[in-house]
């Protein structure tokens, strides 16, 4: 048992544990916090796979931006909301059966899965390599994504603006 395995188990445990907590907690805000811990431990797993760039972009976007947007949404609406579970026994049994089947399928598939030779130089200049790949091989998808984001940005401004104008008319 080496250090890598211990770290993997801790991160995996935190990821799965907070995932389960997220589903089982009753207060909305608690759920978001559990979600943050899931995102952070997944970022930790990325670091273990020598993908630091992806890991910290994950923290920046998911735990930094998206959860805060969620929290904003929650706090501007009903920030003390609770959920009550109303799931019957048959449904629980059905879901449990599904999960067991899924686990068995995945377990037997992964058991005799082979990735071939393991890459050993993944950590050398990987950020630079991502940049080079992105701007040489994947230019068109990259540009399309930027256009999509621009459309979303303009759309958000248009929506916000219309609200303002309507309010001004209502006030008159």
């Amino acid at each position: 048992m080496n250090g890598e395995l211990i770290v993997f188990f801790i991160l995996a445990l935190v990821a799965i544990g907070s995932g389960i907590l997220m589903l089982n907690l009753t207060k909305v805000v608690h759920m978001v916090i559990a979600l943050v811990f899931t995102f952070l431990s997944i970022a930790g797993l990325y670091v273990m796979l020598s993908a630091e760039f992806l890991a910290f972009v994950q923290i920046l976007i998911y735990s930094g931006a998206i959860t805060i947007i969620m929290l904003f949404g929650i706090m501007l609406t009903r920030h003390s909301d609770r959920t009550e579970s109303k799931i019957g026994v048959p449904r629980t049994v059905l879901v449990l059966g599904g999960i067991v089947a899924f686990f068995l399928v995945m377990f037997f598939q992964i058991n005799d899965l082979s990735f071939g030779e393991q890459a050993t130089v993944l950590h050398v200049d990987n950020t630079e390599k991502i940049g080079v790949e992105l701007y040489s091989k994947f230019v068109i998808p990259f540009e399309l994504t930027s256009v999509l984001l621009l459309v979303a940005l303009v759309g958000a401004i248009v929506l916000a603006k219309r609200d303002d104008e309507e309010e001004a008319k209502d006030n008159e």
Partner: protein
Amino acid sequence: MMNDLLHSAPSLSNTLIFFALGASLLMIVLGFVTYAILAERKVMGFMQLRSGPNKVGGRFGLLQTVADVLKLLLKEDTIPKAADRPLFIIAPVLAFAPAFMVLAVIPFSDSLRFSDIGIGLLYYIAISGISTIGILMGGWASNNKYALLGGMRSAAQMISYEVPLVMSVIGIILITGSLNLIEIVDAQKNLAFIFVQPLAFIIFLIASTAELNRTPFDLPEAESELVAGYHVEYSGFRWAFFMLTEYVYLFAMASLTTVLFLGGWHPVPFLGFIPGVVWFAIKFSLVVFIMIWFRATLPRLRADQLMSFGWKVLLPLALLNIFISAVIKEIWF
């Protein structure tokens, strides 16, 4: 010595050495926080024609902060009955831990640094974003409308000013061609980036003041409107943790400014005989002094002015700076 350690194979003794180094850095940072608070009160005192703390610990009040911290630790630790107990307890930790974690990537000198990762700058920006969640949590868990308002303001402000902060740094990344803070410092061997990127420096300084929630952008704790902001309900050492977060971020942000714009540990020409750590300390102290200066001289902004300044002035300027940097890079470098 430290470089050898960073490149050596991981082992149990290395873990212990790194733990000890981390603990000593924490002690140094705590010492800085103690005297930064005193320095802030003294400098502000002199700027406002009064003398500041001068009773505890001799003529200059050298033990004033120590006495204050002792008082905080002895205070009763209250948790309001209506508060959300688990989140109320976890919030100061969630706010403080990232503040100390970001220090891991700051290179203090050629030999004194705690890591050498290729994405140092991205690490700093990503990790510092987690603190916002801690502050928002503290505000929500207190179950107090002033605390919630303070927390919301804080989160809105930190998100809005993170954008120009990151954008202003892109010019430097373009010129250096690396996100590694050590390589960024090395690229400033002959000329600090403050002369290459003056616009970026101004944007960065303003945005970092806003990120630190300091005057003129201290709306989250505007005492005249919100009692105290997100930490109204906190007392004792939990409150001390929020204060500590603020000052450790001051340490981290001043270090980052030194590394990105003032050339880090590189000396001014002809004064190369002074060791690099001392140069770092001098430049760092200068940035901290400027922050204190801002606080003593500028009035607080209004909430809507704050938002429109961030999005309508700083962001377009930062975009312009990226454009100019790209042109400069194409022509000269």
